[in-house]
């Protein structure tokens, strides 16, 4: 034991009596050592306590988790003949017994109701909605939306969105142009589903960018939500917010809105190349013959990417007006342009492949290889 004693004494002395006599660098080193040791010990203790607390809490929560799961699962497997109100009346007393004052238990219940609501339709969803309101969870959601903390707001908005709390729409619309991108997106997504009068109102006033990621989410909701009345998105193609234009182009594309044709053609002159490219793509998909000459006009002023898109669109329109142009492109110096032109020729269902075979006989080795590639349907 004496070794340890000596060591402790020595360390004690270093940090007390002898400390003032060390040169500055050694003194600082000693302090750094002290700092490191204390920090490390604190972290060890914190990690240990955290693990212990977690395991205790998770054991307790597991009880409620299982209890609620079983209860809800029992609730939703009612017979076809049972009336939703009867089911709710039968299970309400049991759910009421759960200690919902506890935040954790409350959130377990909400999360489970939301999960079932998301996955089931028909009477099951109806029962869940009724029970949700009967337990006054909608009021709690409203309080969450009004909370100052954005994370809590998002939680509330999500709940409103999933449980179709239409009455929250006016609360949520406020946040559709919020500075916080995450909150903005959640609010927009919920607003589309919840607003009965004008679900796309937020597009009129959107100043903030709608990030590509948000466009993915909104696109998903707009295209999958069955009860939504789809407006003509041409209305927003003049928006000064490029991201709004982009989203609406994607939707025009998805819903094949021919009434937007003129506006889409006008976008060929837009200064944002991404928008031009998307416009060209739509022109091809909608086979807008009127646009051919406009596309040809801008062809040589644009980058390779847009050129490729134009070739593809010309191929899809397949009017024959520009077939000479397409054939001439296979003598371009750029292999990608050549290939795309060949694909464009191939698109024509009547003569495409035949025409490629004719060209094959008259052209050089490199182009022959490309034509073979283009004719091979297993690759692109």
């Amino acid at each position: 034991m004496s070794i340890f004693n000596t060591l402790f004494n020595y360390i004690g002395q270093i940090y007390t009596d002898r400390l003032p006599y060390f040169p500055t660098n050694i003194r600082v080193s000693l302090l750094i050592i002290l700092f490191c040791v204390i920090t490390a010990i604190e972290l060890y203790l914190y990690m240990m306590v955290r693990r212990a607390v977690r395991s205790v809490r998770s054991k307790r929560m597991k009880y409620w988790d299982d209890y609620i799961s079983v209860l809800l699962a029992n609730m939703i497997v009612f017979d076809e003949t049972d009336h939703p109100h009867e089911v709710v009346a039968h299970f309400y007393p049991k759910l009421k017994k759960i200690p919902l004052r506890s935040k954790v238990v409350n959130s377990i219940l909400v999360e489970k109701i939301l999960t079932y609501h998301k996955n089931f339709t028909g009477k099951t969803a109806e029962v869940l909605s009724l029970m949700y309101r009967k337990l006054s969870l909608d009021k709690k959601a409203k309080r969450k939306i009004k909370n100052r903390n954005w994370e809590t707001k998002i939680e509330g908005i999500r709940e409103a969105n999933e449980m179709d709390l239409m009455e929250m729409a006016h609360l949520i619309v406020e946040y559709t142009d919020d500075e916080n991108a995450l909150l903005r997106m959640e609010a927009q997504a919920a607003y589309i589903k919840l607003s009965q009068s004008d679900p796309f109102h937020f597009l009129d006033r959107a100043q903030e960018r709608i990030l590509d990621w948000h466009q993915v989410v909104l696109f998903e909701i707009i295209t999958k939500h069955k009860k939504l009345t789809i407006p003509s998105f041409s209305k927003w193609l003049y928006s000064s917010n490029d991201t709004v234009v982009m989203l609406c182009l994607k939707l025009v594309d998805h819903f094949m809105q021919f009434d937007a044709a003129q506006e889409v053609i006008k976008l060929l002159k837009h200064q944002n190349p991404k928008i031009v490219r998307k416009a060209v793509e739509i022109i091809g998909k909608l086979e807008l013959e009127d646009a051919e000459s406009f596309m040809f006009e801008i062809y040589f002023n644009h980058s390779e990417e847009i050129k490729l898109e134009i070739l593809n669109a010309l191929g899809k329109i397949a009017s024959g007006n520009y077939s000479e142009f397409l054939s001439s492109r296979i003598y371009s110096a750029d292999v990608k342009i050549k290939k795309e032109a060949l694909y464009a020729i191939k698109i024509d269902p009547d003569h495409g492949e035949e025409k490629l075979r004719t060209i094959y006989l008259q052209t050089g080795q490199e182009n022959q290889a490309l034509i073979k590639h283009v004719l091979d349907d297993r690759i692109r």
Partner: protein
Amino acid sequence: MREFLTDFETIFNNAIFYYAVVVMGSYVIFTLLSAIEMNSYMKKNSYVNYREILVSPLAPSVSILAPAYNEEATIIENIRSLLSLHYGNYEVIIINDGSTDHTFQRMFDYYQLEKVDFAVNYQITCNEIKGVYKSKLPSFSKLTIVDKVNGGKSDALNAGINVSGKDLLLCIDVDCIVQEDAILKLAKPYLEEKYQVIATGGVVRIANSCKVEDGKLVEVNMPRNLWPRFQVLEYIRAFLMGRMAWSRLNGLLIISGAMGLFDKNIVIKVGGYDHTTVGEDMELVVRMRRYMYEQDRRFKVVYIPDPLCWTEAPADLQILGRQRNRWTRGTIETLWTHKDLFFNPRYGILGMLSYPYWLFFEWLAPIVEAFGVCVFILLALMGNINWEFSLILLSMVYCFSVMLSTVAIFFEEMSYQQYTKGKDLAKLLLAAFLEPILYHPLTVIWAIQGNVHKFRGKNNWGTMTRKGFKNAEALNSTANTTT
């Protein structure tokens, strides 16, 4: 003479002290930065529903490029797990880099391949592509096999880039275990950043002693062997602390060669991977960044802290040494190729911070350290050492490094908590104590060796001998040199 030596000793002690303080200070700053970045990522990520990207037709398309060289033992298993990743629009391109075993034959038989008339557009130079193959079976339509003349990993990746028909490139090591949601997570930054994202990287974790079934990770375990365990610690520190901080500063230089997602157009514009360097993964990122600065385009390189990819770390000291030796040479080569970046304001963070940092701390640190040890021994031999002061200085460095590792483990504990068993956590903490004594000196030696080899012009590629995961442990001891 005596007096001079005593003065010199004081100066020497001071030099060690100031150097240590600068290094430690930079670590503290990095720790803070990465804490901020991790925190904001975790918060943001908890609100993300990846299902939306998974099903969306608007998600970017991805080509997975996986070079394979003599992988006959595991290739089928590896391809199978790559084909079952969760993502909508992607293809898998396996590049057989002139394997001398039955890698190609295995794939040919299992997937019933047939040659297609692929007219390869050699946008990036690479060795001759002998053929492009697709499966006859419709359920493997995502798979493309490229058979080419051997040219090394970079060359194989370049060949894959030439065949790719998608927007983004996921370059991976064929034998690493990829988490199912890896593409989703790596692709997301491309959809959300204000500036163009040119590359994203994911965290690489160590799979030794983990339970792997059918090419998928089933259970995470702490490596039983001590050397991989030190690497676990090293990787957690490097990925969760170092790279997250660099990501915050937008000054990230390395996207691990084991897994990175790149913007194909930019990769093609800069000419793909450089096959003259052994540090091709770092070199590519530096070149891509450089290109963006030269074009005056704003951009980002993003790091994702999620564990997306698990790889088998060398358990054999010889192989590990060769790997580190190669890394050092890769660093030197990249630094040398791009020497004009050094404090060049034209290249923003890259020139003013990332490059100098890499030069001073990644390349020079081991040299300075080794030099310091030599001087210390010399002084000791001459009997001119204040043992007490030296010991205190040494303890400071030791304590700091233990604390830093502890903080790294703490980050891991607060975020992903991959090692759920309390025992594993304890083992990791113990490793933090042993690492500075047992493992760190070796890394310094290997780095010095790398320098020596580089400057003596020895271009040893340091092949890593890899085995299938099923019998990895058994083979570790018999791994032989194939350089």
